[in-house]
């Protein structure tokens, strides 16, 4: 039995089917990258996997259980999500925000106990945020805030971590910093990762497999070397590019190329 099984998933908004006939499966501990052009349905797929959007058809099984029959509370114990950024209206401290991640174990009525604070401290240590825990979240840099959000996801103690372009607003240093952290978590604790990435080179370097979405359908699913080929990229992204291999790990590298050159 696969860890995550997506069967003929249809999803979208009123009168607008964004995803159609999506079927794929993921093994425990895999690091999956979702790539594809703008509007291909990458974010919609993550939102459907995390209960934000109800599917219009098909099923998603996580460890054999249909996630849309679970309550959001129970799903949040198995699956956590990190978005592009958190724009909080109020200036909560990092520690306050991360502590909120314990919600799936508290429900409507309980307050946090001592062990919740311990779990939070561990997550802050793992994400290297202990020193910043009393800082207001809106005063952090985008990269630091992303680490705090990962810590918040970790205290949910999930087995599946969904990330929606976690490196979107970051410079190259923070991009690798965040993805290194995610890979470390992925390798060390068998955390299965599904991560939407715009940057094909980051996707190539970090992911075990890439899921290429195009116009709401799967256009390819396999190891980076299989997906990142110039003809496939030209077809789906409508872009000319050169694909080479990096000299260290032999992973594909994609170089955009002017169409009118």
């Amino acid at each position, binding site marked *: 039995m696969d860890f995550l099984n997506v069967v003929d998933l249809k999803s979208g908004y009123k009168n607008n089917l964004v995803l159609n006939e999506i079927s794929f499966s993921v093994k425990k501990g895999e690091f999956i990258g979702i790539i594809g052009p703008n509007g291909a349905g990458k974010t919609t797929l993550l939102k459907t996997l*995390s209960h934000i959007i109800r599917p219009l058809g098909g099923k998603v099984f996580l460890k054999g259980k249909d996630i849309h029959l679970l309550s959001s509370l*129970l799903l949040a114990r198995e699956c956590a999500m990190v978005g592009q950024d958190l724009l909080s209206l109020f200036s909560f401290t990092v520690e*306050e925000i991360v502590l909120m*991640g314990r*919600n799936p174990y508290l429900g409507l009525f309980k307050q946090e106990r001592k062990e919740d604070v311990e779990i939070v401290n561990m997550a802050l240590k793992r994400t290297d945020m202990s020193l910043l825990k009393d800082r207001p979240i809106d005063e952090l840099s985008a990269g630091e805030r992303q680490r705090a959000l990962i810590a918040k996801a970790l205290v949910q103690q999930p087995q599946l971590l969904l990330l929606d372009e976690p490196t979107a607003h970051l410079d190259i240093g923070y991009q690798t910093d965040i993805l290194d952290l995610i890979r470390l978590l992925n390798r060390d604790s068998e955390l299965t990762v599904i991560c939407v990435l715009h940057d094909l080179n980051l996707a190539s370097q970090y992911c075990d497999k890439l899921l290429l979405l195009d116009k709401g359908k799967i256009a390819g699913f396999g190891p980076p070397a299989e997906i990142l080929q110039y003809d496939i990229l030209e077809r789906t992204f409508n872009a000319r590019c050169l694909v080479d291999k990096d000299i260290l790990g032999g992973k594909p590298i994609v170089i955009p190329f002017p169409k009118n050159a």
Partner: protein
Amino acid sequence: MRIKPYQSILILSFLLLGVAFFSLLIGSVTITPTRLFSPAFKGILFLRITRIVLALVAGAGLAVTGAILQGLLKNPLADPYILGISSGSGLGAVVAILFGLNLSFLGSLSLPLFAFLAGLATIFLVYLLSKKGARVGTEDLLLSGVIITAMLSGIIMFIVSATEQEGLHSALWWLLGNTQIYDLKLLAVVSAITILGVVVSTFLARNLNIMSLGEEEAITMGLDVEKVKLIFFVISSIMTAAIVSVCGMIGFVGLIIPHIARRFIGPDHRRLIPASALCGGIYLILCDILARRVTQPIELPIGVVTAICGAPFFIFFLRRSRRPK
């Protein structure tokens, strides 16, 4: 110096007691503390106590509702009236006053009861208008609230402008807010509703923290957002309708006090709600003192005072630094 949250609550509580005591002494007649218990002032003292209690309860309830709705709707401009309760209750009260609706078996309670029910009916309408399937969109709530408020305010204006009866003054007076109360049972009911509302929402406040991060974020953190919205919607509607039906429209308290309290004590709603209750009580008791004193012997409607004093006060606080460090 760093002030701990419980210290802030303690300081605010003492401040509240002090302000309440001060308010006991001044008014059209000034009572010195030593003569507080002399029999000559018994009647005045009783009136002042009921006024102070009502000002405290109304200030606390409005401020807490403002704090709840700002967090729930993720909107710093939300206040207890934004969803249309005040205009609904206002219309109910104006109709009751001007058309002399008086259910004899209810006596003096018929006006507040009518206003209360009209307020709840309005908020229910707003809720239905923003419901799409099983979900209630927060933007839809705000929009329908603002639209319904505009429409009902228009009807109130129409009724008031078309009236030449003697009831006009009391209708206007009611709309501008007041803290006079003659019925102790009514005072007890409003106080009980407010205390219950403040306690329950403090107890459930952790959910508001999560809600304030945004609905999608909250769903992925396992929050049952529709249930949380409904619970806090019901709590804040009942509190606001109860207060408005007795005090009329006392504006601005519910908007500014949560912002000021947040500056004292941070954004965590578990502390923010009690702190807002205390700050709201203090503020409204102070405004009530001004309403009684400033234009003696005429008394000002308290809604006028809260708005005129509130704006500069708010600007002063907003311009100061953010959180205590």
